[in-house]
């Protein structure tokens, strides 16, 4: 029964991780930009939702919309004012990585200064657990986050497979010059990738605000998990990132069966480390991706 409980908790956490990792993977897959500031989009939207819904009492649909706009705007501004100027003179991995890391550092401390360094939670009846079976507790929010993750993921698959801009995004990862030949602007397509990739973190951020709570360092944690999930799933594969996120969420919770909670992050990285050493291409990546 304990194991079943942990499994259910893991599914919920995995759904949140999958949603964030998918955004990172989408951005990295189509633009080849290692967007380690992705966690900041999560932190910004989570805190905006908390501030509006919890502090000002704004109804949830409006707060959610504001969070989506904030995350999308963050992605757009990053592409326009950080990554594009850097890529204009030098596109090396290190330069982009350090700049993104600097943004992450800046946002994390800005949030700490503005909103305080404590743990902030959005109170909602949805996160109250109900005993559905003997000794098995489930909160409605768990089911909601899993359903939302499935809906977002299905919508994203449809978008990438069926719409013009979605196909262009996949094409961008294969061959930017060919995108230009087809009369599309690669910069514009990259902006779409950043906007959509950043916006999909919002449900995960809101669910985290409602359950585990937010703190200024959450962006770094989310960045680590997205990174790990993307590599475990296989770089460039959105489906892989979703599976990777789910696997990490499950692994983290199932570890509670034998280990103390403070080891949860360590478990994530043991999984990541094992994949990097033994199967760097991940679940769905092509075998040459790591090289």
């Amino acid at each position, binding site marked *: 029964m304990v194991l079943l409980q942990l499994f259910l908790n893991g599914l919920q956490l995995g759904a949140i991780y999958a949603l964030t990792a998918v955004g990172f993977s989408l951005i990295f897959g189509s633009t080849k930009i290692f967007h380690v500031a992705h966690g900041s989009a999560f932190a910004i939207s989570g805190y905006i939702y908390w501030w509006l819904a919890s502090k000002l009492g704004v109804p949830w649909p409006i707060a959610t919309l504001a969070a989506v706009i904030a995350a999308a705007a963050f992605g757009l501004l990053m592409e326009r004012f950080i990554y594009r100027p850097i890529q204009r003179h030098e596109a090396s*991995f290190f*330069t982009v990585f350090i*700049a993104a890391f600097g943004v992450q550092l800046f946002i994390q401390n800005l949030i700490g200064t503005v909103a305080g360094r404590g743990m902030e939670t959005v109170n909602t009846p949805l996160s109250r657990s109900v005993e559905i079976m003997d000794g098995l507790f489930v909160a409605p929010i768990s089911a909601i986050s899993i359903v939302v993750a499935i809906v977002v993921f299905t919508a994203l698959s449809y978008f990438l497979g069926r719409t013009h801009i979605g196909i262009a995004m996949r094409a961008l990862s294969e061959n930017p010059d060919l995108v230009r030949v087809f009369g599309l602007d690669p910069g514009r397509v990259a902006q779409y990738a950043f906007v959509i990739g950043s916006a999909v973190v919002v449900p995960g951020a809101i669910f985290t605000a409602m359950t585990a709570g937010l703190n200024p360092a959450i962006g770094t944690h989310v960045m680590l998990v997205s990174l790990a999930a993307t590599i475990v799933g296989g770089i460039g594969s959105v489906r892989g990132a979703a599976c990777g996120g789910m696997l990490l969420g499950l692994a983290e919770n199932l570890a509670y069966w034998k280990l103390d909670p403070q080891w949860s992050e360590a478990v994530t*990285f043991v999984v990541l480390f094992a994949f*990097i050493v033994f199967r760097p291409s991940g679940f769905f990546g092509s075998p040459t991706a790591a090289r």
Partner: protein
Amino acid sequence: MSTYIISLAILIGINAILAVTLNFILGYAGIFSLAHAIFFGIGAYTAAIAAMKFGADFTVATAAGMVISGVISLALALPALRVRGEYFVAASLGLQMLAVTVFSEWKSVTGGIGGLIGIPPVRFLGFDVSDPVLFLGLTIACLALIMIVIRALVRSSFGRSLKAIRDDETAASALGKNVALLKTLAVMVSSSFAAVAGSLFAFYLSFINVESFVLEVSVQIIAMVIIGGTGTLLGPVIGAVIVLLLPALLTYLPYLPPTEIGSIQQMIYGLAMVLLMIFRPSGLWGYGQSQDRKGDAP
């Protein structure tokens, strides 16, 4: 006041050792590690335990730290051999998080969150060098020695091979360079020297805990190297001076609330990293033009 300046100078020296050793793999071998604070920590814990349990003097305690650090660095070298770029960043990040958990949970050895208290005053070849001025001398001597060794290594064929790997790994291996061995050696050298900084740190403060070896510290060391300039000998030292003087200067600004100084400092590092990458990727001390680092990642 002069005690304050000496103590700041000692901390700058210790951090300069960390920056110089990280620059050895980051600037010359192109290995971007987010886990440098681990080896700082291993050096500090080893030296502290050697001094507390076995009454070891500085040379023995530091040597022990260097050996253990070098051996554990193989865990970092292992993924470095298999993968490049972003994968290695992720692996080193993972190792850093793992190490922090071990530092704070392995209570019988590291003292957990509380850390190790009461590290005996440092003895060096039978002399007591716990006087701050003498200790500053010891720190500067260690820094100078490490910089001389690294300068010699960089100019040797080993250093040239590392730079070849940094610029084009495929070409380097096509020319018959043993890429795996060279990378492993580079990581080991860098990690063992970082342990020297840890040993100095433990003896100087006579108290250590996990707080000094977390991810933020690794990031701060990276900031020193980046701000100063990667792939230069003096750049990281200049970076260490700037990064450590910043909080000291901030405390003199009257209108800043003291509780926010840490945050403001981190925001300045973040902003400095972003602006440098946009306008001057080679750092303050680097050569004016952007460095030839293309092709590091697929």
